[in-house]
């Protein structure tokens, strides 16, 4: 069981891909995880059990220096809050849970209803 900093999940299975483990953090996607892995010369198919403990420690240190998880969620929420406080159109759309980017609302606004909230990302939500 390999331990990386994570709020919900304390440990990862050692057979998990390093790339997948890194991408479970809010704020890290394919680009960011590829860059982190290249920095520590970890190949894309690496599993957590194969990388040495010293590299895991440096990865942990690296992750704690990046804005991920709650820091990243807060940034997004602050942006939406700023829009709402200014009284903009976009802020109102976020508040109402409707599409923001000028889409038509005649049908199929499921994604907007799901994601466009003031508490975007929430705590523990994926998006």
């Amino acid at each position, binding site marked *: 069981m390999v331990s990386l900093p994570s709020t919900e999940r304390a440990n990862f299975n050692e057979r998990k891909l390093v790339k997948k483990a890194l991408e479970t953090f809010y704020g890290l996607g394919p680009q960011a995880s590829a860059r982190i892995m290249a920095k520590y010369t970890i190949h*894309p198919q690496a599993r957590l059990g194969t990388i040495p403990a010293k590299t895991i420690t440096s990865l942990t240190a690296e992750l704690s220096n990046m804005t991920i998880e709650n820091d990243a969620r807060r940034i997004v929420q602050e942006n939406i809050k700023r829009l709402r406080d200014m009284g903009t159109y976009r802020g109102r759309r976020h508040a109402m849970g409707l599409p923001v980017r000028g889409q038509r609302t005649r049908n199929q606004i499921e994604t907007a209803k799901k994601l466009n909230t003031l508490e975007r990302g929430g705590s523990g939500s994926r998006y």
Partner: protein
Amino acid sequence: MAGQNCWRCLYRPSQRLLLAPLSTSASTPTSAAFSTSASLFARAAEPIRHTRSGKRLVLGKKKKVQDKTKPPLPGERKAFRKRIQLSNDNALEVPGLDVLSPENAVDPESIGKIVGIPAEVVDQLRACEAFKSSQNWSLFRSPHMLVRKETVDLASQMTSAIANKETLRLVVTGSRGSGKSILGLQALATGFMNNWVVINIPEGQELTTAATEYSTIPNSEMFSQPVYAVKLMQAMHQTSHHVLSQHKVMLDHLQLPISVTRNMTLAALLNATKEPEFAFPVFQAFWKELLLPGRPPILFALDGLAHIMRVSEYRSPAFELIHSHDLALVRMFADALGGKTAFANGAVVLGVASRGNAPIIPSMEKAIAQASAAQKGEEIPARDPFFRKYDERVFEALRGVKVLDVQGVSKTEARALMEYWAASGILRSRVDERNVSEKWTMAGGGVVAEMERVIMHDLRAAL
């Protein structure tokens, strides 16, 4: 025989058969009871309903049968996919065939003969992964090969170069399925029989498709692949142990993290570490030792040349793509192939440009065309003046190489091959002049893989 296990999909029905059959509800007592009130009370759990009281939806009548079979262990499917099976008891044994020997391999008289591979050489070839699972070794009783004109040509070039302590740098090209990898295998077999030190990289793509671990080499811009280096050293130790244990370490390797004693043999040096951290420095030390005068001759072979002539899929810490020639192991081969490494005891550097999954590398094609023209004494084809993406490093790595172009076998060789297949029981039709000629033509002029495909087509049609 392992029960009724499916050999294609690793399904193990024998596990299922071991499960007890699901028992039905034990509402009926198995032994005669004094009183029947026990069974009456049990049955009274379902209330008695009138026949006209209508239907009710009852969920959960059927229980989902849980799959209690054991899935394959991690790594088992891969091992199964890559397994090499060299003998098949269903095939007939073909008596009276010669065995490959150092004399056989260079003798022009043995062109067109089927020879067997000696057992120790088979073990060595298996250890260095020379057999490929896409080849048809598993159809025959024991591994045999056809000695082609190209085999004798290659073997005699190799032995004469080693005898003169020169370096032979050769690239084997040809169309798809023409037998380049098998020719590489024959070269390795010759190397083993002549007691040379054989270094074989069975798949160039394993080094460049970012499939193994990599790490930076301090104080240089190159990268090492430690886990692959360990694997290579173990394979070399297994195959060339008897040759390497006769030579002792001569240089002082003070910078190595492991201790190198005075009386250590080269074989022990290879086996000194299995830790990825120390593996590559040890391999570099071994390579330096091997280049000293007084060592055995070297055969350095690599299959899948196209993969090492391009930018790899690894990324540097600065997130730039790494060129394969910046990977240290590949650089060793590229330098050897390009003539930059000085071998004191004679060496053969062999690159097989196999076509399976091979990328198109214009620089490599141009370089090989130029080398081939230079060899034949023709006019050297010029580079395309409007093509911007020529890679200089590829041209350097292929500077002055010899080229062996492998195309179809001749009709005599095709006949020998078909007679062997018929004697093994795989080919059911008559082997006469007309049939051989027909199969030879259908195979695009004797390309061996196409001949095999044509024969299998006949076999499937006959079934």
